[in-house]
């Protein structure tokens, strides 16, 4: 059986080498996990000012939502555009392009390995959160957990494809990481990282739901925290975005490689 045209042996080697590589940077990754505290800061604000009720969430609901948002973010963080820009500017991309392995798949392996390294830190932060807010403790049921896991992976896939789209622009411009800001800004405000989307006025919500961003945090976090959510339509939208993005990335990549000038080589 082959996945993305790769045999199991190749996949296993890719993942284990990347995992070993990531283990070297444990402190880095712990700090990075910690830099995701934004949902907790927002939680303290929303609950302190009793705003939760106005969008139908009590303090416990808020706590669960923001912890879930934190966890989903931990496992859907993407930085492919930065790695790619560095590799492309330093000429490291040239040997990657010669190998019979799509360079993007190498980055996928790096991201997955990093997620595995991050897991213990994310759990430690979640436990700390429960110690500080014991009343919010909950264990999602197995189906809930499975669906949340699945949707987080889809969220990661969408985020990865979106950034790959920007990364492919590296073939045209030297500084595509600057363009990443234009994705990050709407992501920050529309994904649900700062506030559950149910707090939005209905006309803003309608516009937000037309973008891929709510499916990156809001949807998986709602499943994980046990809030009522339209599971069928959510997954449908996630798959729809993936099916739009995969051919786009493929096309842009193919066009880009033709222009590749092997900078720094």
């Amino acid at each position, binding site marked *: 059986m082959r996945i993305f045209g790769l045999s199991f042996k190749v996949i296993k080697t890719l993942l284990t080498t990347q995992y070993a590589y990531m283990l070297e*940077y444990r402190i*880095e*990754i712990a*700090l*990075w996990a*910690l*830099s*995701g*505290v*934004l949902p907790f*800061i927002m939680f*303290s*604000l929303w*609950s*302190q*000012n*009793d*705003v939760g009720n*106005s969008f139908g969430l009590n303090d416990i609901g808020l706590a669960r939502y923001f912890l879930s948002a934190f966890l989903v973010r931990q496992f859907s963080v993407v930085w492919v555009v930065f790695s790619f820009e560095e590799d492309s500017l330093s000429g490291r991309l040239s040997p990657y392009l010669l190998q019979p392995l799509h360079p993007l798949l190498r980055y996928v392996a790096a991201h997955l390995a990093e997620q595995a390294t991050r897991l213990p830190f994310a759990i430690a932060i979640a436990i700390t959160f429960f110690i500080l807010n014991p009343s919010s403790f909950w264990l999602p049921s197995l189906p809930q957990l499975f669906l949340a896991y699945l949707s987080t992976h889809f969220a990661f896939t969408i985020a990865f494809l979106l950034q790959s789209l920007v990364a492919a622009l590296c073939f045209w*411009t030297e*500084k595509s990481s*600057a*363009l990443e*800001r*234009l994705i*990050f*800004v*709407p992501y*920050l*405000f529309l994904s649900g990282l*700062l*506030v559950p989307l149910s*707090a*939005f006025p209905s006309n*803003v919500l309608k516009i937000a739901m037309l973008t891929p961003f709510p499916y990156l945090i809001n949807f998986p976090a709602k499943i994980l925290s046990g809030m009522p959510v339209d599971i069928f339509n959510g997954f449908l939208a996630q798959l729809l975005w993936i099916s739009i993005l995969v051919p786009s990335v493929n096309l842009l990549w193919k066009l880009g490689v033709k222009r590749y000038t092997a900078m720094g080589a």
Partner: protein
Amino acid sequence: MQRYFKTIRLFWSTAFASQLEYQLNFLIELLAMLGTLLGSVFILSLFFTGGRQLGDWTWESALVIQGVYTFLDGLTNALLRPNLTEIVNYVREGTLDYVLLKPIDSQFWLSVQKFSFAGLPEIILGLSIVFWAAIQSGSTFSIYSLLVFIISLLIGFIILYSVWFLIAASSIWFVKTWNATEVLRALLAAGRYPISAYPVILRFVFTLVLPVAFLTTFPAEAILGELKFNILFFGLILSSLFFIFSRLFWKFALKHYTSASS
């Protein structure tokens, strides 16, 4: 002293010339800035639905805080980020040697060598919001309140600079401090909202441990004419201590600098 001013002028005029090459970057930064501001004001407005207040701050006075935050963010993008994130690279590649050999103070050189002009619109916009929102909330400016405002902004900037420089300086030992800077940036985002809107424990942390309150809340209180004199006095002492510590720490760190790849 004059030598230092002349050096800054030379640094920034070359920076300006080299950035003219990347005009697209300027446009992207502008778009990102406007998007961020729009988003933050929108999120802030959600706190005020149904006639609520945010930690005894009215909507207009909370906008003053957004303005101060935008102003400091602009300064960060223009001055702190381009310079202080480079320190790590100098250490890693061993090019810090060349900086140390120059006949000028190394901390000065590392802190002002670059200037990103893409941060300027944010600085101007931030100040405009501060004054517009302060007028809207019925504040009458006096020379005294303007002076206190400028001093408290300086206090905030010096604290921000010193904390950031401390982290960057620790790269002498740890080399990779990029993620530590990210933690700092994430915590600083708390400065978008008034300090009194946070639970008591966080208020304490954001005033004394990581003084976010001095960055945005206190300057906003200053322009609204509500800042207590003893807080200003405390801020002066605190920022001086932070700055002196960052200098002593840099001297100490340099003693441990072993250079790389040479």
